[in-house]
Every structure is written in C-alpha cells, then in structure tokens.
C-alpha cells in the first residue's frame, strides 16, 4: 500500500513538474530566444549546446543548465573553465533570469521522478519474476 501511494505521488510530481516546465517555457519563450541571440552575438555555443539551442523546448533543459552554470560561474560540462562565456552575465546583470532556474528545476524534477517510477516498476517486475 505504501509503495502504491509513493508511486502515485511520484507520478503526480513528475506530471506536475513537466507541465510546469511547459508553462514556464511558453511564458518565457521570447526571453529565451533573446537570451540565445544575445549570447551568440559574442560567443559560440560549444557542442552539445550548439545542438540544444536549435531544438526549442526539447533543448530548454540543457540550455537552462548551461546558463545557470555560467550565471553562477560554476563549471559547465563541455565548456572550458577559462572560456570568456563565463563573463556573459557580467554585462547583463540587470536582466531578470530567475525563470531559468525555475525551468531547470522543473525539468530535472520531472526527469528524476520519471526515472524513479520506471525503476520502481522494473524492480517490482524483477521481484515478481525471480522472487515470487
């Protein structure tokens, strides 16, 4: 019974955060593309971000991770530590970019919850098959 309610809670959380990520993206779509344009005026996206920036909502999660990283000046995957891209937000301090973090966390929550529920299902299936 506990597993059932835990599973339903995870499913609900996954769907809610996925829906939230769609809403955040839809609401900030113009700002998102402006941000991409601004960045590309001065820098070049390293791969795989050069791919993600072209695929709209499907690439919004890794792009939000990328911008969050350079905003906090933390090491970003596939971007050299000495890259001038880390200075991008130094000139754009006035910009409201809180929605990037919200988009990132909504995406990551939905993905982790999705993986958890699939693993829970797989564990139940394996248990029933090998330890009936």
């Amino acid at each position, binding site marked *: 019974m506990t597993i059932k309610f835990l599973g339903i809670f995870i499913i609900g959380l996954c769907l809610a*955060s996925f*829906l939230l990520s769609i809403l955040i993206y839809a609401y900030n779509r113009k700002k998102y593309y402006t941000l991409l344009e601004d960045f590309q005026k001065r820098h070049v996206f390293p*791969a795989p971000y050069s791919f*993600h920036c072209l695929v709209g909502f499907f*690439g919004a999660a890794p792009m939000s991770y990328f911008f969050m990283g350079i905003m906090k000046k933390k090491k970003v995957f596939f971007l050299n530590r000495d890259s001038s891209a880390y200075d991008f937000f130094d000139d754009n301090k006035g910009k409201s970019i809180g929605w990037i973090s919200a988009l990132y966390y909504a*995406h990551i929550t939905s993905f982790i*919850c*999705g993986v958890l529920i699939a693993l829970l299902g797989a564990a139940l299936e394996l248990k029933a098959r090998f330890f009936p």
Partner: protein
Amino acid sequence: MLNQLKELVNKPVLKNLSRYTIKFQQYVNMKRALNLSSRSIVHEWSTVGLGGIPGYSTYVGNATKAARFLKMGGYVGIAFSFAGPTNDVMKACTVGREGECSRSAFREYSKFGLSTAAGIGAGAAGSAIGLGFCTAIGIATAGVGGVACAAVGSVAAGYAAGEFMNWGVDAFYNHMGL
C-alpha cells in the same frame, strides 16, 4: 584551427577511418591541403565575417535545417504519441465497462506524460553521451560534427528512455492493480 584539424585527422584511431570515409588525405600541412592561404582566410573573415567563408555557411545552414527538422519531428512524434492513448481511452469509454473509462484515461495519459518527460530528459543526457562517444573514436566535435553527434545521441537516448518508461510504468500499474 588548422592545427587542431591536423591533430584530429592524424589521430591514430581516426587515421584509417578518416582516410576512407571522410576522404581526408594525411597531409602535413592542412592549410595547403585545403588550398587556403592565410591572406585569403583573414580577408574573408574580416570582410564578411565567419559565415562568409566559402562552404562554412552552407554547413552551418544544413545543420540548422537538420535541427529544425528534428524539432518539428519531435512535436509531430509527441502528437502521434498522444493520438495512441486517446484512441485507447475513447475505445474504453465507448465499449468498456463502467469505471473502465477513467481508469484507462489515468493509465494511458499518465504513461504518455511520463514517457514524454523522460524522453526529453534522456535526450539531453544522450546528446552528451553521443558527444563523448564521438570524441572517444576521434570524430571532430567542433561545429557541425558536434551537432550531428549530439543529435544522434539525443534521438537514440530519447527513444530508448521512452520505451523503458512505457514498460516500467506498465509494470508498476499492473503490480499495483491500477
């Protein structure tokens, strides 16, 4: 840039592969091999920008078109994925027993939402794996090569995650009697 290209083409793993598949010769001087002079490169670059270098804009344009195609394909794929459960739910609502309709709607639409979310997330992770794989076997990941590697990894991982998700969620629902 030319030094990096030379280094990549002369990598031991890629040496044979590139010679036969990409048809690069193992030139000592890549600039000479590409029939470019420093003056011509700098002139093109400084007067018309990076996009103006002959051939460069075509490659970038093709990559952009391919990515746009993938983006549209993704939306079309989601629409088709939505049509499947809708069909099942409608069938359950018209011919099923009482209570079957809402049960089927919960099962099918939640499965659709979960697999879409997991597919998109795994696609992002898959692009990094694809890029890592390309780097490991010596395929150039700068520019268009990186976009292609990321795209292949992303599509493969997204598809695999969607399928795994469908199976896992089905297993969970069956065991929980939902």
